[in-house]
């Protein structure tokens, strides 16, 4: 079995989801991040954010706490955590309760507005370079190796320890198709089998 030391590299086009209802602040963050070559999808409501989060493929979520009168941005943090996506809370109304709730829900950072875009981009870079938790680490690897959505879906099942037949049953496809995708995945990761794949992502 080959064990390789993997050096994290910054994705060529990292993408974040920004949920921010303020026009000026949203525009400032989006433009500032784009100037730093960080792609940024900007939505203004909780519902839009949920929709984008489910549909998109994001490296991080930037959530304003109050997207309406309720602190619904914090719910996004919980959703992102469940999907293995790191998050940063943005708020002008910083108080201990918000900080505690947000961090307990899995936020990685909390930034008080106003802040410098440079400070935000440094934190986003840190989230990419140092993924926290197993899910974040797995997702980081999938993003780095540019797997397609289908390959990612199967790779997650492989890493859960499912056999080819079990994967076929779960996704509703033939054994041959699963084997085809598995070999594509192994090729992208430059490993020979699932043991090497597992050891590459979660080295012991």
């Amino acid at each position, binding site marked *: 079995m080959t064990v390789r030391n993997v050096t994290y590299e910054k994705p060529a086009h990292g993408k974040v989801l920004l949920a921010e209802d303020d026009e*000026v602040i949203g*525009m400032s963050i989006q433009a500032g991040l784009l100037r730093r070559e960080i792609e940024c999808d900007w939505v203004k409501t909780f519902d839009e954010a949920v929709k984008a989060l489910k549909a998109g493929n994001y490296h991080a979520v930037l959530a304003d706490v109050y997207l309406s009168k309720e602190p619904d941005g914090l719910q996004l943090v919980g959703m992102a955590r469940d999907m293995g996506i790191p998050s940063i809370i943005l708020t002008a109304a910083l108080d201990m309760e918000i900080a505690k709730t947000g961090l307990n829900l899995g936020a990685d950072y909390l930034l008080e507005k*106003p802040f410098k875009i440079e400070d935000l981009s440094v934190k986003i870079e840190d989230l990419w370079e140092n993924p926290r938790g197993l899910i974040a680490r797995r997702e980081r690897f999938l993003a780095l190796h540019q797997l397609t959505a289908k390959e990612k879906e199967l790779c997650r099942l492989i890493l859960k320890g499912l056999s080819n037949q079990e994967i076929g049953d779960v996704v509703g496809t033939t054994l041959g198709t699963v084997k085809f995708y598995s070999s594509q995945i192994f090729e992208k990761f430059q490993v020979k089998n699932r043991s090497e794949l597992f050891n590459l992502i979660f080295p012991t």
Partner: protein
Amino acid sequence: MAGDFHKWFHDMKSCLAAIQMGTQLLSETENRAEQDRVCELIYTKVSDATQLLETLKKETLNDC
């Protein structure tokens, strides 16, 4: 006013944050049309902040 002060403070802080971040954006923007758009948005936020100050002044006088 006491009960609403927390909301007032939050609204004012949001306005000031937007003005500061908008100004930051303005300093990084070279495109004239974008500059005009950002200036317009900052001006709106300044008006909002002024309005909030007026509200506070009026409410404070009422309390006296």
